[in-house]
């Protein structure tokens, strides 16, 4: 009998797993001379948690506002569940927004705020009350139902905003930096809670943030945006381990990037020669279209390890030489800044195994930097860095 129940999660999931809930097709937005979003194509799958991640001014909020219907695209189409809604005003779109400043109605109680959307849709009073009650329980605000927004803390207001949007069971929930105004501890706590709620209700979340850690904590798929374009989309793991652009490499976590020329593939490994003549290896399947090109070769700081100049690197490892400039003891790890022969300052993060910053790698010491070629990546030379 589960099939006849329209909201049975399995039925919904299987019927629509392949269908995109939100689709942007070549969407462009100009504000006067300023190009905010540039020919953006994006497909957001049902039931997933998406994060639009990027620095301020990258077009992520504008993108969200075009999905919500608050901005008209200059070009391109917006689809919700396969339906073209580009010309439809926001009050006739089946999405709801959690605004950055919450935008709670100050003259209405928590309960009436949450009921606002349902009341507009001519849902029976008993049904409204039931759903509002349920939703307030979900966000743990039941006892505060009669309060006015001004009588709530920032975290509580945030939850009211979430409940007010979610109670309508929208096709997608749009979140515009909803945690931006909260202090760090509360933000951490609410990140987890948001993720829990999303899993519980199974609604597509599109979350705009400039905080990479927030995106990595919550999102199934992170869409990194820069200058109105999508730099790369994927899971946190994919983006971190194999960034495709210099921007992603340095925006999502730290990266060491060195200018280099990519050689021709030699089996599973492709040789790369840095600008100062050091020879490194990259897995061939990570080179893509950059074979034979001038590019940047990169590696994450925690993938590198330090050796004394006499130390013997493991067989086949990538090795660079340099001199320690800074050694910072951070407790969990020790962070080194090493200047290479070619002049780059590379960051190395080493596990704190000795219980102190080892003397062999003290400031001024010559060292070898080595890492497994599997962790090496190449990206087109970034104009940004």
């Amino acid at each position: 009998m589960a099939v006849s129940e329209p909201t049975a999660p399995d039925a919904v999931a299987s019927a629509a797993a392949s269908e995109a809930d939100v689709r942007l097709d070549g969407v462009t937005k100009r504000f006067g001379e300023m190009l905010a979003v540039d020919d953006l194509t994006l497909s957001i799958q049902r039931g997933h948690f998406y994060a639009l991640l990027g620095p301020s001014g990258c077009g992520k909020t504008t993108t969200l506002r075009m999905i919500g219907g608050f901005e008209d695209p200059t070009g391109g189409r917006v689809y919700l569940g396969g339906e073209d809604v580009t010309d439809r005003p926001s009050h006739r779109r089946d999405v709801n927004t959690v605004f950055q400043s919450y935008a709670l109605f100050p003259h209405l109680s928590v309960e009436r705020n949450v009921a606002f959307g349902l009341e507009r849709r001519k849902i029976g009073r008993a049904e409204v009350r039931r759903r509002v009650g349920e939703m307030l329980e979900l966000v743990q605000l039941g006892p505060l139902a009669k309060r006015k927004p001004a009588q709530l803390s920032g975290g509580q207001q945030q939850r009211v905003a979430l409940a007010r949007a979610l109670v309508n069971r929208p096709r997608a929930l749009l979140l515009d930096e909803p945690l931006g105004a909260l202090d760090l501890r509360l933000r951490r706590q609410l990140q987890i809670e948001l993720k829990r709620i999303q899993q519980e209700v199974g609604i597509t979340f599109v979350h705009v943030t400039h905080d990479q850690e927030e995106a990595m904590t919550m999102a199934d798929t992170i869409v990194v945006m820069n200058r109105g374009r999508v730099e790369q989309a994927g899971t946190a793991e994919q983006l971190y381990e194999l960034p495709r652009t210099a921007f992603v490499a340095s925006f999502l976590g730290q990266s060491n990037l060195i200018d280099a020329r990519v050689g021709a593939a030699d089996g599973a490994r492709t040789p790369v020669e840095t600008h100062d003549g050091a020879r490194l290896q990259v897995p061939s399947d990570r080179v893509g279209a950059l074979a034979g090109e001038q590019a940047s070769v990169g590696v994450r700081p925690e993938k590198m390890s330090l050796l004394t100049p006499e130390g013997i690197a493991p067989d086949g490892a990538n090795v660079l030489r340099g001199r320690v400039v800074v050694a910072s003891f951070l407790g969990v790890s020790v962070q080194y800044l090493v200047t290479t022969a070619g002049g780059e300052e590379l960051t190395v993060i080493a596990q704190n195994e000795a219980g102190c910053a080892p003397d062999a790698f003290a400031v001024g010491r010559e060292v070898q930097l080595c890492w497994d070629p599997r962790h090496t990546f190449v990206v087109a030379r970034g104009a940004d860095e």
Partner: protein
Amino acid sequence: MSAISLRWRRSLLPWWFMAPALIWLIVFFAVPLFNQLNVSLMSGNADAGYHSTWAFHTYWDAIRTYHVQFLRSLEYAAIATVIDLIIAFPLAYFLAFRAGRWRNFLLLLVIMPFFVSYVLRTVAWQLILNDNGWVADRLRDIGLVSQHGRLLATSTAVITGIAYNFLPFMVLPLYVSLERMDRRLLEAATDLYASRVTAFRKVTVPLAIPGIFAGSLLCFIPACGDYVNAALLGTSRQYMIGNVVQSKYLDVLDYPTAAALSFILMLLILVGIALYGRVLGSRNLMEAAA
């Protein structure tokens, strides 16, 4: 000891800040008010002078004789206030949301009439509403005024004058309450399936209630006591209670009746405000203002 005296001095501090206003209120409001209360209970006549008795009958005589003017005052003031609200709301809305860089200039235009004296502005309306004026002619053309009918010296003229003179007092508080409204609330409303009309009804208007209340009081209260418009644009058949008070004080020198009339008007207005506040929801009012 010193801790106590310090706390004592601290608790005194707010009173020091209030002192100028308090002294002002006592000297120029409370004392004259009690003086007039006393006068209203005197009896005698202008030639022999007045002396204190407990002449409450003055109040009953005043109501009996002048209830027509009382009711007319309330009626004219109420109609003018409603007209002002209807004109001012769209104007204030435009100023707050749409005027852009013209806003300050347009606000200046709203208060511009204050640069000209009240009486002079009202005299100007004598010319506008003149029997042979353009406005009267046009209204005769379209039949809103009969062929030999007048515009001047009618209640329409008096109400028009009052509405004109008090319009800025409605526009400014409305503008303030709309201007400080968070525009994103309207986005939130449309996000929650409200059309623009519904968003206006469910969000903009409730949040403008403090402005509506303040503007209505600022129009209605002085309009109730007004006598200039009735004197210049009306005849004795349009006289309001202000005209009666004025003539009692300055022409007939019947001070007790003039004072009694003033107190009755004050009482009527206070009752009116209390009812009005109740209708708009005083609790909402306080919270929306907070």
